[in-house]
């Protein structure tokens, strides 16, 4: 077996064991805050992996990915608001009551995020390169200002949730249970993405990144494949938004802000673009650095900047490429 492959397995295996045992380790260490921190890491990892599907595999550099995170979060927030208010979600054309059940709220949120991604993607994917970056940014900012203008739902201040969504048998209010839900969501999404990347569909999307014109001359209508990929990424981001809203029990427009999209891109670049594990590592590295450095100084970004430059310059495939010894471009 080649050494890069076994090193990679070692890194993956160790990471998985640490993540599985984390709530126990945190309890033993007497620091339950670690569970919250790592829940956040898992959620951001999910968002970053979904973004890497379009940036790293599809070559679609979107600067509006946080919009779908925000939509997912707002679906949770708005439904919770109506539950707390006791008011109906809609009264016309038919009476629609709100819900607090995971099995209703989460699929709805994912579906709405994916549909919005399909709409935004349908327009944006008619452009490429710099124009694509700008148009996705513009759409996301439109949604950001829409969220700010929703006075009913707190406008600038957002919505505070009284409790997390409800699941039969499992109490999501318990941080350990919630942590494992986040872990399961991430692992499922990673597994599905792994299948997707190497399937026929994934090959078309990756081919379109390398040379779209050539893909078309081979006979692939690339637009529709890229659009579906964009929607799948939107669904993943929506799920991340759902988890974020539940984790912090708070939803605000800042989730949709373009700087939030920028953070997700940094995580992807830092961890390793075009890999699935890379964005997970990137999310972990960034949030841990923020956590540690911000204890010393509020200007922790001053340290993150040089570190990012260092990684981008010296590790071609980010932290993951450096760890697994596949710094060079490889299939």
């Amino acid at each position, binding site marked *: 077996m080649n050494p890069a492959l076994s090193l990679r397995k070692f890194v993956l295996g160790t990471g998985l064991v640490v993540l599985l045992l984390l709530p126990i380790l945190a309890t033993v260490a007497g620091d339950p805050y670690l569970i919250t921190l790592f829940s956040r890491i898992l959620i951001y990892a999910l968002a970053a992996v979904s973004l890497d599907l379009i940036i790293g595999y599809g070559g679609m550099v979107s600067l509006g990915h946080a919009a779908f995170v925000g939509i997912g979060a707002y679906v949770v927030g708005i439904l919770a608001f109506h539950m707390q208010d006791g008011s109906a979600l809609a009264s016309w054309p038919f009476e629609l009551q709100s819900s607090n059940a995971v099995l209703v709220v989460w699929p709805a949120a994912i579906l709405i995020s994916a549909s919005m991604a399909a709409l935004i993607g349908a327009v944006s994917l008619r452009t490429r390169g710099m124009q694509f970056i700008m148009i996705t940014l513009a759409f996301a900012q439109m949604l950001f200002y829409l969220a700010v203008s929703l006075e009913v739902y707190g406008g600038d201040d957002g919505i505070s949730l009284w409790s997390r969504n409800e699941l039969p048998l499992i109490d999501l209010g318990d941080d350990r249970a919630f942590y494992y839900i986040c872990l399961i969501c991430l692992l499922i999404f990673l597994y599905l993405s792994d299948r997707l990347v*190497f399937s026929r569909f994934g090959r078309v999307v990756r081919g379109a990144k390398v040379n779209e014109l050539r*893909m078309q001359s081979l006979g692939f209508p690339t637009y529709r494949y890229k659009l579906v990929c964009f929607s799948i990424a939107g669904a993943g981001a929506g799920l991340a938004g759902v988890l974020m809203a539940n984790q912090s029990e708070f939803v605000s427009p800042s989730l949709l802000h373009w700087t939030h999209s920028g953070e997700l891109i940094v995580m992807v670049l830092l961890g390793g673009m075009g890999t699935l594990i890379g964005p997970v590592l990137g999310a972990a590295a960034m949030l841990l650095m923020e956590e540690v450095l911000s204890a010393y100084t509020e200007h922790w970004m001053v340290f993150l900047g040089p570190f990012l430059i260092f990684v981008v310059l010296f590790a071609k495939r980010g932290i993951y490429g450096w760890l697994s010894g596949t710094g060079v471009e490889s299939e």
Partner: protein
Amino acid sequence: MSELLLETVNLEKRFGAVQASKNLSLRIASGEVHALIGPNGAGKTTVIKQLAGEIRPDSGAIRFDGREITYLPADVRARLGIARSFQITSVFQPLTVEENVSLAVQAHKGHSFRFWRPAAQEPQLVLPARWALERVGLEGRSRVPAAHLSHGERRQLEVGMALAGNPKLLLLDEPMAGMGPGGTVKMTELIMGLKRSLTIVLVEHDMKAVFQLADRITVLVYGEPIATGTPEQIRINPDVRRAYLGDEQA
């Protein structure tokens, strides 16, 4: 001559002040190797692009296999049976030779909204890919990443990808570009081996290869065909001699 496969009627294409195609009418029979020659800037690649659907003519019509295709996009034409190789090699560098060709096969095996099975393990894709690699003499290099191929091998792969979908019409845009004498001979043999099994439109600068391979030749000057005929007819055509000699001695 046997039945007509491809016909263009009065194609016109302008890029600003440049007339890239003018009054361009071609009639290409099934099974024919038809070469397009002409001095640099004669608009040969522009013709290939219009046939492949990458650019649209300003006016005129293209008919393929009894069907009007003038405004069909490139991917639809590819699935109808028009394959093309590129002047500048554009194989997928990170993929292996076999993956490159099986990707080309995939385009002709229904839609690709299949999210689960690893494509690299589908015999439906891999077997036709191997067959195409044998046709271009690359079967021994199937596991090598395309990035590691020699220039000549990449040109072979380029043709292999075009063949993978079993096209009716093959558009070859300078398949010998940048090759040494050995490579040119090899590529000429390869194309010779394809003759009759499909129809080929060949753009090439290597006159020796063109006269060896082509059944008929069309000479373009400033986007306009000045002569069409067998290699013998073209060789003795006074207009062609003037266009070529004038160009080369200038």
